[in-house]
């Protein structure tokens, strides 16, 4: 297995080396375009005249090249996609090369990394592509040997006819296979026969990463390229008024200073020169909206929680009656702050706006959006825009937006030169699109037997849209239920952040259910299982989750963690369904010198078939580390519309000495794969908070935990 940094069509052909007469098969891993794989001619491929977004080639030397178009952000797609194709093709992984596709005139529908959607979206199609090629190779061999295709078998890139002891490599068969009709129907492997899928395959870019090769957007350099930094308004609610750029323009290496929208861009010959010159700008701003501060938000939340103007998200039964006749009512409120995405590679993009079209290069989770927005901005056809994806130094949702791409386009258009726009860490942290701050109020009505018969949730958020997931658990398990929300619109910009909404809703909800279980005098795990029984036997309204899969992860994590059987260790439980996957966790806390210390997290994940063990384990472990880190330390506050934390000295991220041990298991159920990049994060906060509650008797109601009373003076 090797990886090739180059990505143009021409280079793919060169690398695929089908010129000597190999097999080039086009296919779609999305639902757009032709549905069956087809043999493609090199000429059609080179001209971009096909209906396909992915290609698979088998060269005469037997090397298989897969042209994989999904943006790589660290979720392992670039490795997992070709694994699925190679599995059905029955080829030796060492003989597979992977090339990242360019976004061109092809239909790259859903060429984006977000919502843990990439693998589930394309599972069947990728398998079909591999199986089609395999079947064509088998038929080519059968024809040559004059034997029935059904008697031939494949293994590691060869076709064998056991009865006559004959064997040929795929490379030798590829030219003949290319002339055969594409089979209308192919048989996919039985999951039991998977050899590559479910094994541990290493990230295909490892070699380049550990040797420091240029891979990321920020690593893109080109002769004659200019560098730009953009001065944006200093606070949300301010707008640009005027700029005096005399001093900046006089500085070494500065080529131009241009303004667009509310921004001033300094353009020059090197990163450091434009950074220094930007500091010499004298920009005046004026107020255009509210300049909000964090203490205002706290007050605002209190008001919104009592607002009469809520949007009802779900209503089952008669909530008022259930609460009026309840034996016991439990109430709890939970709040989470704004968070920055802070991928370690800050925002950046390269643009070259030419009279005949636009060239874009850089890291984005949504290349198609970047392209259509560029077209809109310049009033040109998207067909004249090419976009080359680089590897991304993380994204966490931040790179779903195209704002920083458009900045590069604006600046290149104004200075008529190729430009790379670079954000400093400070730009990245203060420049917006945060995880929104939200507050929740929960109320539960218990009957005399401690059963939850009524449930109310109000979510209030700042630019958070609907901060609830009204059809998730416990909906469906409670007879009388009301979920509603109120939104405050603010100049502070927000956007999706890894596991949007559920990243904080899960903490609040799973902490509250822990409270309710305690009030009901029930074990927290048993309490959930009882609710699931109810959802199974007498479901109320719509259910978005699978009761049996939820039950399975709960029971498995309870068993793995020795739930309730340990002495001197305080355990907290949490389970959550998001992005079509199920994850249950148990956090373990020890008291050290009177303070709770998180030692370990047990996790059980059901994300269907695990394609790549190594990648999957890291996704889940990374998600848990992320969940612990942000629950413990993450906090972005505002004063007069400006973010108060500007870099990692004040915005605390989790470090190596702060991680818990993680004991991780996957449910092996053969179900088609579902999301993996996100679902491990949501349950983590409550697993930790509930364990801390067990240890200290103190309920953590707000994030970050490190600033709550249990940690006062020690964090």
């Amino acid at each position, binding site marked *: 297995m090797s990886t090739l940094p180059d990505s143009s069509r021409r280079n793919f052909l060169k690398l695929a080396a089908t010129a000597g007469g190999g097999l080039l098969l086009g296919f779609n891993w999305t639902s757009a375009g032709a549905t069956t794989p087809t043999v493609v001619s090199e000429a059609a491929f080179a001209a971009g005249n096909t209906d396909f977004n992915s290609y698979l080639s088998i060269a005469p030397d037997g090397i298989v090249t897969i042209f994989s178009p999904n943006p790589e952000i*660290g979720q392992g797609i670039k490795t997992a996609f070709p694994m699925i194709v190679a599995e059905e093709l029955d080829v030796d992984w060492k003989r597979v090369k992977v090339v990242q596709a360019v976004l061109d005139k092809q239909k790259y529908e859903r060429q984006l990394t977000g919502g843990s959607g990439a693998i589930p979206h394309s599972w069947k199609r990728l398998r079909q592509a591999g199986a089609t090629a395999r079947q064509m190779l088998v038929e080519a061999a059968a024809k040559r040997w004059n034997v029935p295709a059904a008697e031939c078998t494949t293994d590691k890139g060869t076709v064998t006819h056991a009865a006559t002891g004959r064997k040929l490599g795929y490379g030798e068969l590829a030219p003949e296979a290319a002339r055969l009709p594409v089979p209308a129907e192919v048989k996919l492997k039985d999951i039991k026969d998977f050899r590559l899928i479910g094994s541990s395959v290493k990230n295909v870019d490892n070699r380049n990463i*550990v040797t*420091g090769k240029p891979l990321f957007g*920020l690593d893109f350099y080109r002769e004659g390229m200019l560098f730009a930094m953009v001065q944006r308004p200093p606070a949300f609610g301010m707008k640009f008024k005027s700029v005096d750029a005399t001093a900046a323009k006089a500085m*070494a290496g500065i080529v131009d200073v241009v303004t667009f929208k509310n921004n001033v861009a300094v353009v020059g010959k090197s990163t*450091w020169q434009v950074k220094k010159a930007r500091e010499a700008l004298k920009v005046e701003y004026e107020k255009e909206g509210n300049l909000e501060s964090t203490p205002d938000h706290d007050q605002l939340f209190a008001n919104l929680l009592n607002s009469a103007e809520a949007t009802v998200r779900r209503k089952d039964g008669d909530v008022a009656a259930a609460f009026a006749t309840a034996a016991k009512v439990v109430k709890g409120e939970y709040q989470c702050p704004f968070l920055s995405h802070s991928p*370690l*590679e800050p925002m950046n993009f390269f643009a070259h706006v030419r009279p005949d079209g636009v060239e874009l290069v850089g890291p984005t989770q949504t290349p198609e959006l970047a392209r259509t927005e560029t077209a809109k901005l310049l009033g040109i056809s998207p067909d004249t825009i090419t976009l080359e994806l680089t590897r991304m*130094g993380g994204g966490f949702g931040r790179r779903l937006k195209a704002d920083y791409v458009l900045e590069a386009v604006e600046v290149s258009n104004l200075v008529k030169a190729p430009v790379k726009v670079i954000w400093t*860490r400070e730009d990245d942290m203060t420049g917006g699109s945060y995880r929104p701050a939200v507050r929740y109020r929960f109320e539960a009505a218990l009957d005399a037997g401690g059963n939850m018969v009524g449930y109310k949730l109000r979510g209030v958020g700042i630019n958070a849209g609907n901060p609830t997931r009204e059809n998730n658990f416990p909906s469906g398990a409670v007879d009388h239920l009301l979920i509603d929300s109120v939104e405050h619109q603010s100049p502070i910009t927000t956007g999706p952040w890894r596991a949007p909404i559920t990243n904080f809703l899960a903490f609040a909800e799973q902490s509250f259910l822990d409270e309710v279980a305690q009030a009901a005098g029930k074990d927290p795990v048993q309490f959930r299982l009882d609710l699931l029984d109810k959802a199974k036997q007498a479901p109320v309204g719509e259910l978005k989750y699978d009761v049996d899969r939820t039950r399975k992860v709960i029971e498995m994590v309870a068993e793995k963690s020795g739930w309730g059987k340990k002495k001197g260790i305080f355990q907290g439980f949490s389970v959550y369904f998001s992005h079509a996957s199920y994850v249950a966790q148990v956090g373990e806390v020890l008291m050290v010198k009177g303070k709770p210390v998180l030692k370990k997290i047990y996790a059980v994940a059901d994300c269907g078939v695990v394609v790549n063990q190594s990648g999957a384990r890291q996704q889940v472990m990374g998600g848990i580390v992320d969940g612990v880190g942000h629950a413990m330390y993450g906090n972005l506050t505002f004063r007069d519309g400006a973010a108060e934390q500007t870099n990692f000295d004040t915005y605390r991220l989790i470090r190596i000495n702060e991680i818990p041990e993680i004991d991780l298991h996957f449910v092996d159920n053969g179900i088609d794969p579902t999301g993996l990049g996100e679902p491990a994060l949501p349950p983590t906060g409550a697993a930790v908070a509930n364990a801390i509650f067990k240890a200290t008797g103190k309920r953590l109601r707000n994030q970050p935990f490190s600033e709550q009373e249990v940690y006062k003076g020690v964090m």
Partner: protein
Amino acid sequence: MAAFKLQINGRSYQADVEPDTPLLWVLRDHLGLVGTKYGCGIAQCGACTVHLNGKATRSCVLPVSAIGAAKVTTIEGLSANGDHPVQLAWEAVDVPQCGYCQAGQIMTAAALLKQKPKPTAGEIDAAMVGNLCRCGTYHRIREAVKIASTKTK
């Protein structure tokens, strides 16, 4: 602007830059050595870690004028064939997720093992604490440093 002679990865380079330019940007913008990454610019994340006379150093806060005759090693020059025990261990453990922080992690780990070939778990954490990994690959980093330490003489 001034001309600075630099000893990097056993070769000599010349850079015509302002004296306050951090080594990080000299490497990236002027010398084409982009393996050293920018993450924070204020010595908080470790993405920019290089070796200065064998010691792990944050190149984002090191002005080029302060380097003098000191020998600089970057990820590109850590080993001739990318086969430093730390690099090999990183591959064996499949450490990288997005990969952006990893050059810095590797440089910090390599400097630690040079100083202390058999570090304890606590010493590994203490050495690596200045390197952020936003993807949370810390468990694998620990494991890879341990494996590399068994291969370091």
